[in-house]
């Protein structure tokens, strides 16, 4: 089976995210003062072949732990869909 996996990598909560702060300030300057707690992360999409959804998720977790995310500074979320 083929799966499409969406990986969302975000700076860990509690760590300073200067990119998020800069975007928040820019939003404020544009009149979107109601926006707060802006954080900037990274989205990665990939296809992979796996025998099951669980295997697709497990393999992608390994990819995240080894390369796609830095375990010291980032957390990640996976979304797996068939296709």
């Amino acid at each position: 089976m083929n799966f499409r996996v969406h990986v969302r990598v975000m700076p860990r909560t509690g760590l300073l995210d200067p990119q998020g702060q800069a975007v928040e300030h820019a939003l404020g300057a544009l009149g979107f003062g109601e926006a707060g707690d802006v954080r900037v992360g990274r989205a990665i999409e990939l296809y992979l072949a796996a025998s099951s959804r669980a295997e697709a998720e497990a393999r992608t977790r390994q990819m995240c732990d080894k390369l796609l995310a830095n375990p010291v500074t980032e957390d990640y979320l996976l979304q797996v869909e068939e296709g």
Partner: protein
Amino acid sequence: MLHVAVVRFPGSNCDFDALRAAERGGANAYFVWHRDNDLKGADVVLLPGGFSYGDYLRSGAIARFSPVMQAVRRHAESGGPVLGICNGFQILCEAHLLPGALMRNAGLSFVSKPVDVIVERPDTAFTSAYEAGQRLRLPVAHGEGRFVAADDTLRELEAEGRVVLRYVAASEASPYQPNPNGSANHIAGICNPAGNVVGIMPHPERADDPLLGLGDGAGFFTSISKASVR
């Protein structure tokens, strides 16, 4: 004569400076390409600054998987001295040869200027030319130099005396901003528990001759020649 391998990745840009500084320190220095599988009998390994693999994904994240890094890991694990400067420091953290990570500077800007640091570990292969507590003026040039680590890792680094360089507060003696990137505990450089793997954000290879405006970095390379040849 001491053999010093300077590892070049696609995007390294301080490689010639590092090579020349090692030569001026008295070593036989040569380049090793990232696809090489061995270090050609190196006694000491330098990972120079730059933007390996365009800093794709994260600084140092892709370089970590270069074939040469297997040889660097073996060299480090057998006690061989390794110095990562700037991007080299980022690569050592990504390769888990050093703990922690280097994140985007707190001020967001790329910072390129001299800073003052204190040598806290004069007993490594790269800092033996200095005294404990000696103040050095060295240039930094980085956008992602904010050292961070888990609280217990930071406590361990401090308790074990593994902070090699620390940014010092501005004073009348120094007009420079104390901590250019917001790093935890003002850390500018650390080492592994054995002390043979060192990572630093400042660039001593750009400051090894008063003709360059700064000469305090020369000690990193004269220290190497005092390191025991294995």
